[in-house]
């Protein structure tokens, strides 16, 4: 049992899995020097054939990973910044993701695409602050956004072992967080959420770094308003733990989602839409969502912060649903 940082948990998961499974290798920019810290020391320990520095050729090395996967490997592709997923969008969503269907199940494509440091990072501006996990969910790609060190460990193992393409977002704002990771920690199945906090009055759904914000708000509101907030983290965005969401909402009758994707067609939209359509009988108040604004992130930090979902917005939304006038429901 060791308390470790999220980023360390990623590094440990990768090392453990590479020691266990010789078919795993890493492909990406500056992974030998480990600019992002996930591969630190691995080139020296496991050899440069398994930690491969690529030229700045995202489209090609993403397609390369697919070819290696079809030939029996389990590539882990590291992207230095989230918007590189845009340059590699075609090989991920149009090639790797569709290949199994297109071949009628002839092959599996076990590739993990990881972004260690997704989302806004205080002053990195519009092209380095994206959090595009909803785009991959919309494209049907398995998508994981762990919130804590132990989840990062277990879900990274599961992603590498998964026989389908998986996009793995490690939010920059969570990389420094710490949590106990059991020495014998194992993979955490994709598609199974985690209830971080039991509550009776309202279900708050959050993923990634926003889970911490949700928990802080939950504690504060318990104190100040005596509101009992349940915090539910789906952990994987696609497939989504609909049963876990339903169980929580059926208990609390209220739903607030906080989400770091753009508002329009984001993850929060999907959760609220599904709840409105399929859990209407359980909801005693209209569901609410707190999201990133529908805008690119400006450089100035005060402007950046103004566009990101905040604890204040979440607290206000929670208060509004627990005190909803019954007329609002007719």
């Amino acid at each position, binding site marked *: 049992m060791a308390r470790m940082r999220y980023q360390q948990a990623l590094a440990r998961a990768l090392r453990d899995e590479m020691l266990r499974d010789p078919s795993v290798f890493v492909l990406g920019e500056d992974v030998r020097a480990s600019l992002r810290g996930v591969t630190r020391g691995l080139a020296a320990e496991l050899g440069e*054939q398994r930690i491969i520095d*690529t*030229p700045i*050729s995202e*489209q*090609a*090395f*993403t*397609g*390369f*990973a*697919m*070819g*290696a*996967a*079809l*030939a*029996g*490997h389990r*590539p882990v592709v590291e992207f230095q910044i989230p918007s590189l997923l845009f340059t590699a969008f*075609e*090989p991920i969503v*149009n*090639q790797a993701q569709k*290949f*199994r*269907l*297109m*071949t*009628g*199940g*002839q*092959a*599996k494509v*076990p590739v993990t695409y990881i972004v260690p440091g997704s989302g806004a990072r205080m002053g990195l501006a519009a092209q380095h602050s994206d959090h595009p996990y909803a785009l991959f969910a919309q494209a*049907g790609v*398995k998508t994981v956004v762990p919130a804590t060190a132990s989840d990062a460990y277990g879900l990274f193992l599961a992603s590498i072992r*998964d*026989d*389908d393409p998986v996009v793995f977002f490690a939010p920059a704002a969570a990389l420094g967080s710490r949590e106990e990771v059991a020495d014998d920690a194992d993979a955490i199945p*994709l*598609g199974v959420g985690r209830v971080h906090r039991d509550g009776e009055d309202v279900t708050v759904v959050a993923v990634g770094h926003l889970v911490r914000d949700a928990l802080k708000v939950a504690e504060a509101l318990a104190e100040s308003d005596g509101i009992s907030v349940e915090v539910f983290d789906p952990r994987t965005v696609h*497939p989504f733990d609909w049963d876990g969401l339903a169980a929580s909402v059926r208990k609390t009758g209220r739903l607030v989602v906080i989400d770091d994707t753009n508002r329009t067609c984001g993850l929060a939209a999907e959760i609220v839409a*599904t709840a409105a*359509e*399929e859990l209407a009988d359980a909801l005693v108040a209209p569901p609410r969502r707190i999201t990133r604004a529908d805008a690119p992130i400006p450089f100035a930090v005060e402007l950046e912060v103004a566009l990101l979902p905040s604890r204040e917005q979440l607290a206000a939304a929670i208060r509004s649903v627990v005190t909803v006038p019954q007329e609002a429901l007719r």
Partner: protein
Amino acid sequence: MSDRIDLYRTMRTIRRFEEQIVTLVNSNEIAGVTHEYIGQEAVAAGVCAALRDDDVITSTHRGHGHVIAKGADVARMMAELLGRTTGLNRARGGSMHIADVSLGIYGANGIVAAGAPIAAGAAWAGVQAGSDRVAVCFFGDGAVNQGVLHETMNMAGIWNLPLLFVCENNGYAVSFAQEDATAGSLVGRAAAYGMPAEQVDGMDADAVAAAAAQAVAHARAGNGPSFLECTTYRFVGHHTAEATMGLGYRSDEEIERWRERDPLLVLGARMAADEVAAVDADVEALLERALAFARESPRPEVSSARDYVYASGPAPREGVAV
């Protein structure tokens, strides 16, 4: 000599397969559009003659020829194109995604040049496995202007991959003439990455086979990638639908000139008449059986529409709440 008969047999099979496909598309027995390989048969036949079953290829939108030449079952190809469950891809892929991964055929591809890095990954995996297998990526003259192909040529160079780049220069990308689309030369592009790059007569299967054998041996020996530009021509439209479009980007004279160098005639002229006749008869019989097999095969159950998307985990959600 038997190699030549095999080359001819492969080309004849492709030619007649494609001619049947055109008929079946026009009669709506095959859905969608197909891109015929008619005229380019010598390239697939010549290159694949140098390959083993464990070698890998990636193909293009114009893929039937490559897939046949690499050894796929034409009956199961026909079944695929007719949308039957006995098809290579269980009716999920069709013409543009036809594949037989068990034969190292990593698929036709709907996206120009997308197969190149996939082949590179397979080539690398072969080396890791300690095997001397090679990978071949086929692509057209238009694909040489896709950035991903250049990224792949560079990676093949720095990692010394056993990868053969086969450019089928049929003179056009749909309507856009190769000379107008390309600054510099096609072989010059590849040579810039330090790999052997050669131009070969893509209408002469013997010539293609010889050049491919050399390039493949070069790769198997651990000497890295090379590039073959096969000059060829498609005798028909870009796809079956073009016939009615009247795009008018090339003249009938030009087509006629190239037809005089029909790869089947070029090779046939080097064979005894009875050899040719015997192969032609075999091929007709083979394709007749193939079409019969396809027509007798069942269509997929609508209830299976969401199958084969994921290897694990829940099936994709339907479009309505259930």
